[in-house]
């Protein structure tokens, strides 16, 4: 087991270095002089410029600069934003809770709908329910989520006026030293209607972000259930006269869950990619919309740091899924 853990942890190092190299190349391949970029439109005398180049280590050979970059990153120094002048890491972590909150709610929504839908489709295989559910799943899977978000805004915010268009909570509410997880903060505060307001802001973005994972999980649940429903122990359970709910819900579903859990783990990357679009549509103040705005403002240190931080997060999540999996399923440990 320890060998398995060490092996998996070592395997992420090249992936992390690759992501770091990518972001390093990114910042260095962008046309323009970094010193000039820091100064804006000012003129600078050559001696001062040389001093600044040396100060930032920009006079070193590229591979030295890369090593220095890695060294800084490992110590948590991701550079400073050109726009806000804050350390990139601080900007990132002040917005990260909003993204996590959105992603978790999206995933909860996706799982809560997808698993019953997949089970129902498998149980009623070939019926109209099956066709309707799987047709819906394929549509969800093919959905351009940025358009889906606009459609929901059009219907629920513009036409019906049920939900707000953007943000995380009404401006009337303010929490002094909150956790930045709006649902939690609003629930803990004694301000009337704060929680309702937070939920109504969250609901559409969570549906939009959860749509593709929902479709993927529903399809996987259906096919895993179909496989399991044909097994002998399911027939035995039926023959014993157990209720249909017990057979399908307990005996079969539990065994069908292994591939479903894998697929859920794999959706984390999709969620982070989708968050970039979803946050953009709903002006959700998370790292996704921050990253896109940094690109528009040519705030390259923020883009560089943000991409590397998101990549690291996804790599770490994938690693934990892998490890949990190894614990749950001993057969995987031996495999290489």
């Amino acid at each position, binding site marked *: 087991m320890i060998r398995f853990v060490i092996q998996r942890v070592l395997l992420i190092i*090249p*992936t992390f270095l*690759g*992501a770091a190299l*990518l*972001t390093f*190349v*990114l910042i260095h*391949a*962008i046309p323009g002089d970094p010193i000039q970029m820091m100064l804006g439109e000012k003129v600078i005398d050559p001696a001062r410029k040389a001093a600044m180049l040396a100060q930032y280590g920009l006079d070193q050979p590229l591979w030295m600069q890369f090593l220095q970059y890695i060294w800084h990153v490992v110590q948590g120094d991701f550079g400073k934003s050109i726009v806000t002048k804050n350390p990139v890491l601080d900007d990132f972590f002040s917005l990260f809770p909003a993204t996590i909150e959105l992603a978790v709610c999206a995933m909860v929504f996706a799982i809560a709908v997808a698993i019953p839908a997949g089970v129902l489709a498998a149980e009623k295989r070939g019926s109209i329910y099956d066709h309707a559910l799987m047709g819906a799943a*394929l*549509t969800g*899977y*093919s*959905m*351009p989520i*940025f*358009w*889906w978000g*606009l*459609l929901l*805004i*059009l219907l629920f915010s*513009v036409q019906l006026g049920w939900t707000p268009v953007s943000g995380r909570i009404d401006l009337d509410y303010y929490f002094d030293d909150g956790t930045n997880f709006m649902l939690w903060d609003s629930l803990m505060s004694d301000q009337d209607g704060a929680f309702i307001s937070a939920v109504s802001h969250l609901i559409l973005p969570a549906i939009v972000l959860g749509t593709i994972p929902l479709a993927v999980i529903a399809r996987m649940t259906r096919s895993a259930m179909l496989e399991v429903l044909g097994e002998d122990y399911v027939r035995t359970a039926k023959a014993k006269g157990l209720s249909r709910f017990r057979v399908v819900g307990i005996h079969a579903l539990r065994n069908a869950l292994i591939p479903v859990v894998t697929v859920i783990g794999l959706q984390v*990357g*999709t969620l*982070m*990619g*989708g968050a*970039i*679009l979803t946050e*953009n*549509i709903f002006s959700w103040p998370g790292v996704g919309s921050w*990253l*896109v705005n940094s*690109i*528009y403002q040519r705030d390259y240190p923020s*883009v560089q740091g943000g*991409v590397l931080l*998101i*990549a690291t997060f*996804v*790599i770490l999540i*994938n690693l934990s899924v892998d490890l949990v999996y190894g614990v749950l399923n001993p057969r995987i440990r031996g495999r290489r």
Partner: protein
Amino acid sequence: MTETAVAVAQTTAAPVLTPRREIWLSLRANKGAMAALSLIVLLILCAIFAPLIAPQDPIAQDPINRVLMPPAWDDGGSWAFPLGTDGLGRDMLSRIIYGSRYSLMIGAIVVTLSLAIGVLLGLASGFYRGTVDTLIMRLMDIILALPSLLLAIVIVVLLGAGLRNAMIAVAITNIPHYARLTRAAVLNELTKDYVVASRVSGAGTLRLMFKTVLPNCLAPLIVQSTLGISSAVLDAAALGFLNLGAQPPTPEWGTMLADARQYIERAYWTVTFPGLAILVTVLAFNLLGDGLRDALDPKLKR
């Protein structure tokens, strides 16, 4: 099931059932896939004959007389502009028809690029094994570890926004799928007798790669390419939506949506139709891909 189908077909219709014909028969029995195929043919015709079908010039503006004109069936609409006009008075229907050119071109170019590079990498990996294999597959793992849209955004920022660079970016993010599939298929084929026979009779590595082994690895690649078109269309539209893909006034569907966002409260048609076009296109390629998978891989057949 296949055996009975073969038996029936042999006694009734076709005396010789070639593998290609068998796949076609199986695909033809799949209603969803056939609907998707007809839709794709229709889209291709739309793209080819866009100048003949489109009622108006897709980039001709008229910011004075016909800004945000509603669709023909709404009050104030006109059949000259069946789906209404956008914020600059351009005809929505014509822009959507011309947009099919961009989406199909994006799908075709992206898949060709990523397929070609992915197959070469996969072949090299499978044939040479060792260091080459490790290097290539590690690189593919790195690409796969990053969310594909994030990676595509990074590459576009690196190369500069625009349709061509967006296609390159999306193609790069798709390479690992083809490389992995090819490698797996190659490793599977290499153990078979016909490859050994070919090698013994003196076939060189290149001949083995492209003439002997590759044609037998095509099935999963065909399925992946079809599904790849849909993800390419989707990702390129997403980049267009973020203003990082095709640039205005190009009538690309994602770019059109980016422009339409500002009118969402007063002109629903500018938002609804371009997205519907993306959804239908992506759905068609996904349906066809699913159908092809069922037809090409009898093991997965329902």
